[in-house]
């Protein structure tokens, strides 16, 4: 309960400060949503409601715009966001095999977050590192030449790191 209250307060204070910098014009909706997502990692419902009131448009319109674009998400991302590149070069080198491996190992589907909020899984259109295909991005790091065994390896490395052990990269 405490935690939920804290979250709501946090959104409230953040939005109050943020909205001061934004003119009340509907043209600023997308930059505003981007700022919210940068801070929280997703678009909390309360924040979208505040944005709608500020810009003088309906909540439905805010939600309509937000859902139109691939960038916005409506659930908190995991601590280690995993993005599987689905670009053409990755596809011909087996990107779907890689995305299935992640899904299987994390027991979630693309677009979901694990129950412990450790991992979230998404696909991206193209990271632009086509020469390293197939590519997955874990956190901010791009991993090239992915394979199902490398998925296992990356997960193991994160697990070991969490337990305080170090795994040196080859």
């Amino acid at each position, binding site marked *: 309960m405490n935690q939920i209250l804290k979250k709501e307060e946090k959104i409230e204070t953040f939005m109050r400060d943020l909205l001061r910098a934004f003119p009340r*014009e*509907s*043209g*600023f*909706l*997308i*930059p505003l*949503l*981007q700022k919210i997502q940068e801070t929280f990692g997703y678009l909390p419902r309360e924040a979208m409601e505040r944005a709608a009131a500020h*810009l003088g448009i309906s909540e439905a319109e805010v939600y*309509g*715009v937000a859902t*139109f*674009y*691939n*960038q*916005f998400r409506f659930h908190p991302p995991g601590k280690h966001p995993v993005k599987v590149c*689905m*670009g*053409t*070069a990755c*596809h*011909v080198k*087996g990107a779907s*095999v890689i995305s*299935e*491996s992640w899904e*299987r190992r994390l027991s979630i589907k693309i677009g979901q977050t694990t129950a412990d909020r450790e991992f979230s899984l998404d696909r*991206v*259109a*193209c*990271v*632009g*590192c*086509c*020469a*390293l*295909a197939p*590519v997955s991005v874990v956190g901010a790091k*791009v991993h*090239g030449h992915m*394979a*199902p*065994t490398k*998925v*296992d390896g990356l997960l193991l490395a994160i697990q070991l790191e969490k337990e305080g052990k170090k795994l040196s990269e080859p």
Partner: protein
Amino acid sequence: MNPERPSPVEQSFAKLRSPARQKWQSMKKGAEPAILVGTATCGRASGALEVFKAFQEQTERAGLKAHLIQVGCLGHCYAEPLVIISRPGFPAIAYPRVNPVIASLLVRSFLIEGDPPIELMLGAMEENDSFPTVWELPRFRLENRFLLRRCGLIDPENIDHYIANGGYEGLCSALQKEPEETIFLIKNSGLRGRGGAGFSAGRKWEICAHTEESPKYVICNADEGDPGAFMDRSLLESDPHQTLEGLIIAGYAIGASFGIIYLRSEYPLAEERVKKALAQAEEKGLLGEKILATDFSFRVSLFRASGAFVCGEETALIHSIEGKRGMPRYRPPYPAVSGLKGKPTLINNVKTLSAVPHIVANGVKSFTSLGTEGSKGTMVFALVGKVNNPGLIEVPMGMTLRQLIFDLSGGVPRGKRFKAVQIGGPSGGCLPEKFLSLPIDFESLKEAGAMMGSGGLVVLDEDDCMVEVARYFLDFTQKESCGKCTLCRLGTWQMLDLLADITRGKGKTEDLDLLRELAEDIQAGALCNLGRTSANPVLTTLRYFRHEYKAHILEKKCPARMCRALTAFYIIPDKCERSCDACVGSCSMEAIKTGRGMKKIIDQEKCVKCGSCLGACPPKYGAVTKISPLSEVPQG
């Protein structure tokens, strides 16, 4: 103009240029060596930042003074991280695939002992008597770097590097002329929009300039959404000022005072570098109020796109800047007449704007001397897929696909057979072997059923199934369809369904006619180009690879053995070495068991067909194979 009395514009520009040139010369000619590390996104993914750090530490430890510079991308993705080292007394030398160990070796043997290791080098960047040069490599020899000329050779975060290398000369020259003259110049150069459709840039500028409304806007479209294309990203990461200069010139020519760079949100590094470029240009008086002591004022802001492929379409892009859903509207009116907030808006692609400064500074001939009759200049291709040397390539229009794929990119790896090349992303098409001798320009590609698009080129070999490739692209357009018009929304959905069925072996013969019919209807009736061109991958594969479709439908067989529902992995018992466990270890599903006589057997129930075992089995045994149709897998 009187050469003895330079104009005020020239004078104020000279104040920027002289110190920039001096700094550049002192770096080039000075006693300190220079180390250029390519740290664009692709370089970073291969560990370029670690390499940069290693150079920093090693030079520091050795007490060496050196110019350590993070540069952009030279376009040789296969050779990343790429480092160019110049040291007085030696030509500049390029080293490919550098890692921290090689970095420390280079510092010791090249920088300290003066003995550059030959076996590690890609080649010297300039002619000399001692070392082989990169110009002997076909990739360097056949390329014609017009837009990419500075990429990978200057510091993208340092405006002085740009100015010292011919930068902002175009703006300086444009500001001394009437805006009409610049439009005339661009029109005469035959520059065509590099975003896909190939509309005459000069004509677009003219329409916008002649529309009597104000204010006017210029938008640089950097929402590069094609999966498999990254030339705009590379240009903005490696030489952001070039595009910015083009944008400012365009603003001056059409009489706009406000510009927007509409940048894809997945490009954080490009964003960072564009922001720095904007700040530096403003500081130097090249942007903002009274540019170069003229009355021309121009401001540029950055708008981060939110990841919708359809926003590459002009009217959709404008809607998204206005804070709406990025849905296209019917044209005309074209944005050049009525665009952002109903005002005349010029929208040009990154590559189109990047060509402008050169044309203005060096004259029309510098551009028209390259290319073909109808398509002037160069084209930047992102050449990826099944080639030995993938990367960014800039060549004059009219080069053949064979030259691009086999001469410049080293052909198909591992002796596999070339099958097709996919040009232009989801709006383009797949061209088979017989088009290898086709000189590529806007017209020739259109005739063949493909499209220049933004220049993505994916090479496919015998292991790639053309039905699956068509399905992949349609899956992409179907997801990205904005849903406004019925033909695109439902048509792509139906086509995708049919294609998915075929790849699963559930297709019917009549599906092929239905597919063609649907594709032609969408082509004729969809509202925007995303919809209209979405059928291209299907139509071209149907036209050139009909036999593959038929094999899927009639024999339940995927000839390329790529469609997983129709293919199985199998270990040939006679070839299995038995005491080797490579395949077992590679299988993350534990689907490979050791059977009688130590022979390995794949449990088809558990197998997810990832292909790891195929890669793991040593080539000298070659026991793992793919079989299609499933009925041919030996039982037991």
